[in-house]
């Protein structure tokens, strides 16, 4: 049906994922202050993209499937966004605190 990706593609993706795992492990040992979590999440997002586009083969799926996958992340952003709108704005009230 769809084009069949080559073994070389899969092995390359796997090697990249493994290298990135080592990178995320060693970067965590370096004190970057608040940037540690940022770097860790950027690497995690990149690894996720590799898995989604190559292992899950999203790039070869129909436009509708791609739309649904994007929709999932949109709703995830809404969920996390509402979490922060709630918790951050609590301290704006007089005498208010985060908890």
């Amino acid at each position, binding site marked *: *049906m*769809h*084009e*069949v*990706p080559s*073994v070389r593609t*899969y*092995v390359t*993706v*796997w090697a990249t*994922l*493994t290298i990135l*795992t080592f990178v*995320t*492990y060693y970067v*965590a*040992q*370096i*004190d*970057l202050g608040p940037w*540690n979590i940022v770097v*860790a*999440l950027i*690497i*995690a997002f990149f*690894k*996720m993209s590799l*898995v*989604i586009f*190559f*292992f*899950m*083969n999203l790039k*070869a*799926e*129909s436009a*509708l*499937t791609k739309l*649904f*996958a994007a*929709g*999932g*992340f949109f*709703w*995830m952003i809404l*969920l*996390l966004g509402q*979490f922060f709108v709630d*918790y951050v704005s609590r301290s704006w009230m007089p005498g208010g605190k*985060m*908890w």
Partner: protein
Amino acid sequence: MTESHGAVAEHSEHSPHLRHHFDSMEQQFDSATLGMWVFLLTEIMFFGGMFGAYTVYRSLYPDAFASTSLHMNPAFGAANTAVLIVSSLTMALAVRSARLGSQKAIQIFLILTMIFGIAFLVIKGFEYHEHWVDNKVPLFPTQWHHWDYSNDAEHPHQAQYAKQAQILFCFYFFMTGFHALHMLVGVGIMITILMMARRGIFSHQYFTPVEISGLYWHFVDIVWIFLFPLLYLIGNARKLI
């Protein structure tokens, strides 16, 4: 999307796997894939709630969460990440073999995927056992004194964080626990797909069950890709310990 679509559609009129409510094998495959993605979206929201709660508590108690690195063994986490990524590779190769219709290869790669999945659970089991022995399971109030570092000269910073660190461990056990549960289900799915593969029902025309099981397996892999840095590598660089 290639020119081969038309050719497959013609042949598929004879495929015994084409359900009558679909026009073509292509349409049937796309529907199944879309359905699986919809299921995975509900899973994103399921784990998303836990990640959201984790983020709120981490922003409330950043130092306490960072202090938990003392209790974690990142070697377990790193090993499990490696094992899971290899299992995703073998799963992707199983799907590839199914698409090419090579019966033997499907079975070999499914068995390999299952072995790596079980290896993950075994490592996780050893890790849980270590937490249990170290009294790091925040389950029994009678054991909470193990979290009290107030008289511990080796860990002077731990005392003020002991209580809040238990919150991180609650997240740790819930998130990795649900992840392990998904792995267990995944191994069950692998067994089912393997039985189907042994009956030789998969071909280059019909490999949908292998494909959507692969989607599930890779999703569980993605959850771990986020769990590893968020739970194991929080405060490694900070000199709280």
